[in-house]
């Protein structure tokens, strides 16, 4: 499974999201998940199963990507990220 964290520049918030998601999936023992980061402008060249982003950037997402996307309001609270991420990952594994 591939998860991509999307931010405006690809160096700050998305990197923080990546670090926390990697830590969460590692704790969950999911070793088949890879996490990358990109800036929003590059989304069409970066296929993934799940995209993670903020509310402000989500509004600018291409429509066809929105169903695959999780909106996070807190990039440092691992419990909050997990609460959004786990249901989405479970949905994909059905």
């Amino acid at each position: 499974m591939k998860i991509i964290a999307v931010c405006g520049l690809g160096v700050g918030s998305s990197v923080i999201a990546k670090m926390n998601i990697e830590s969460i999936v590692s704790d969950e023992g999911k070793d088949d998940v890879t996490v990358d980061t990109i800036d929003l402008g590059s989304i069409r060249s970066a296929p993934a199963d799940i995209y993670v982003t903020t509310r402000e950037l989500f509004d600018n997402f291409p429509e066809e990507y929105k169903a695959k996307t999780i909106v996070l309001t807190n990039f440092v609270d691992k419990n909050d990220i997990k609460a959004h991420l786990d249901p989405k990952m479970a949905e994909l594994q059905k």
Partner: protein
Amino acid sequence: MATNPSLSIDQVQLKVHADDWEDAIRVAAQPLVDSDNITDGYVNAMIQSVKKLGPYIVIAPGLALGHARPSAAVHRTGFAIATLRDPVKFGNKDNDPVDLVVILASVSDTDHLALLQKIVAFLNEPSNLRVLRNATTSVEAQKIVNQINGGN
């Protein structure tokens, strides 16, 4: 070539005043300008980035991560942290107002990762956030710096 940066106490400012969100970024970044880690151009780039992309840099309740792309305006990778005496609004629906600003400046896409990992580990703990937000003295600042650099 990674430069293995660490946080120093003069990059941490506690309970400073900012007039508004732009000022908050300027004030928080000033130690990095003073130490010539970054130029004023980088500070302006961080502000322009918010104007262009929106206040998405407010990545958690009350917490803004000021940053711009690596560029020639960054001489050395570095971070700075400021807590604000009076919170300011960035225009972020979920996470305003902001009372904690973290500035990130990197010479490359990777040079900041080791220290960022340590800062993220610190920010992951709600109790650390409370300590940082309540801190007022240089002794407390030094403890926070040591904790971040120690990576736990």
